[in-house]
């Protein structure tokens, strides 16, 4: 009898899991549960879609759902899932029906977090995670009535919205409770440089202020902070962060901030796997499980889960925190845990306008921040991962050639080679 697999949630991880299962010869049934009308796509693409840099088709990198379905052969169940019953290996839908499987992948992703403050549900207050969110903001902008906006949350999605509004001539304020921009990945001095550039472009920055309420007086919004300051605007974006969609996991599944998985993407319950932004995989820097919400990470986790579900023993060793964000003509590049302790070194390449901050401990970079050096960003990443994994090899000639070409100061290379 053929096996039966459920994939609950169909974003990047779910897609790659199904693809890997078929590529590894799994010929059983696959039921894909999704409550979205959209084919898998990166939430980051939403702002580019509003901007007009890509068309709707471009937000579906693997094609429309029907095309993917044809390619890999699976059944789409457009039903809301209320629970994954891990011991029974069952999927329970919101209408109470229950279906038993041989194995289940939970790849439900994450959702935008909205704090429970008064006025958060007002008209022209939005989040940015799904294509539905993108369509709503696009519609609001198309009215021509939005002249000012407040982006709450100096996050990666927050800055992309600032970029979008700035390009559309909308007066923009970026606010956060943290004292500086990109608080979860930037070191203060790199953040200060970015902030100076943003101010120069006319972006108003409001930091170290807790959001208290959004007031709505006849359609005119006012973002009110705990210290009493209020910023009037026509539109508010809530970019405070995301939360993993773990609510369908039953009480037997180990869940912290995300569903806890091992390097094979197995949960603590037999036959139940998890991958993508809803799960905590291995952080190779800390050795702890952590949500690392990056497209590439979700893809690797999905591939690994899919291979294992097809019976091919596969391990994904994990990842470290890292990101590259290109906005308003600049690049912020961060690696490792910004809370890590170590000795910090700062270098600049004034000719290229680049800055490099490297924090290292015992010869291992534990946190690096670069401004405007994207050309060698992958070379640094690969090198840092090798060091975190225990290698003490110096930079390869190829790495050095690339770094020289991209303007990386000799002192940075010397430091890494120590």
């Amino acid at each position: 009898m053929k096996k039966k697999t459920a994939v609950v949630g169909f974003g990047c991880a779910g897609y790659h899991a199904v693809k890997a299962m078929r590529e590894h010869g799994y010929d059983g049934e696959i039921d894909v549960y999704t409550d979205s009308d959209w084919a898998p796509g990166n939430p980051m693409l939403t702002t580019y879609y509003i901007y007009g840099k890509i068309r709707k088709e471009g937000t579906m990198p693997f094609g429309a759902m029907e095309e993917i379905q044809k390619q890999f052969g699976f059944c789409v169940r457009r039903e809301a899932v209320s629970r994954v019953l891990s011991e029974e290996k069952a999927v329970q839908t919101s209408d109470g029906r229950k279906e038993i499987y041989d194995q289940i992948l939970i790849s439900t992703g994450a959702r935008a977090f909205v704090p429970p403050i008064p006025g958060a549900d007002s008209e022209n207050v939005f989040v940015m995670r799904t294509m539905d969110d993108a369509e709503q903001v696009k519609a609001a902008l198309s009215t021509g009535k939005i002249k000012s906006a407040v982006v709450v949350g100096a996050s990666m999605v927050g800055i992309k919205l600032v970029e979008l509004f700035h390009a559309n001539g909308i007066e923009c304020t970026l606010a956060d409770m943290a004292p500086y921009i990109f608080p979860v990945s930037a070191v203060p001095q790199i953040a200060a440089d970015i902030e100076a550039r943003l101010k120069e472009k006319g972006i108003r920055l409001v930091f170290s202020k807790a959001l208290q309420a959004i007031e709505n007086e006849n359609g005119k919004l006012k973002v009110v902070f705990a210290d009493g300051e209020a910023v009037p605007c026509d539109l508010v974006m809530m970019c405070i962060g995301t939360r993993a969609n773990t609510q369908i996991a039953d009480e037997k599944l180990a869940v912290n901030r995300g569903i806890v998985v091992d390097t094979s993407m197995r949960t603590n319950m037999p036959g139940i796997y998890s991958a993508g932004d809803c799960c905590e995989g291995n952080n190779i820097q800390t050795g702890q499980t952590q949500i690392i919400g990056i497209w590439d990470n979700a893809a690797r986790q999905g591939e690994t889960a899919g291979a294992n579900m097809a019976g091919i023993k596969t391990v994904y060793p994990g990842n470290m925190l890292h990101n590259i964000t290109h906005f308003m003509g600049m690049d912020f590049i961060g690696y490792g845990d910004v809370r890590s302790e170590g000795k910090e070194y700062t270098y600049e390449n004034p000719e290229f306008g680049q800055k490099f901050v490297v924090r290292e401990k015992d010869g291992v970079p534990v946190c690096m921040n670069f401004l405007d050096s994207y050309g060698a960003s992958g070379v640094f990443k690969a090198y840092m991962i090798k060091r975190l994994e225990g290698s003490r090899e110096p930079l390869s000639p190829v790495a050095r050639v690339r770094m020289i070409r991209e303007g990386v100061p000799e002192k940075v290379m010397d430091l890494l080679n120590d």
Partner: protein
Amino acid sequence: MGKVIDLDIHKCSACGACAVACMDQNDLDVTAGVSPFRVVCDLEEKNGGFEYYSIACFHCEDAPCITACPCNCLSKDEETGFTIYDNTNCIGCHSCAMACPFGAPSYAADGKMIKCDGCVERVKCGLEPACVRNCPTGALTLLDEEEFKEVKVTRSLKKIMDMANE
């Protein structure tokens, strides 16, 4: 059968002919700030000697740029194994740059990713890539995967012999 563009560093002098040929073949406007796909460089060794390099995309078998691209712009050419691209939907996010351990992705003046595609169209027509065709010392060669494996074994053996003779 997959193809490999191989560099024999003992024959390379970093003369730059490959880089110029690549710019010409791909119409790269480096004066507009576009990075060339092929980079040449000499590295000074600790003993004062020099090594010469000509570096471009390595066309990795499990190319990390392909998975990292949120727009699915990159793929493998089945016939040659080269990592090719269609940047119609490229958003210029630089995720491919962050994924590549060799810094291969470049960006055009419009911000979209461009890169070495191994001169895939030339190769499919039985021609050599422009860089190989123009390398005056024979340092760059186009090999079949099997030939490349043999070359690697020969080089490793030579290295061991050289070390033994030192």
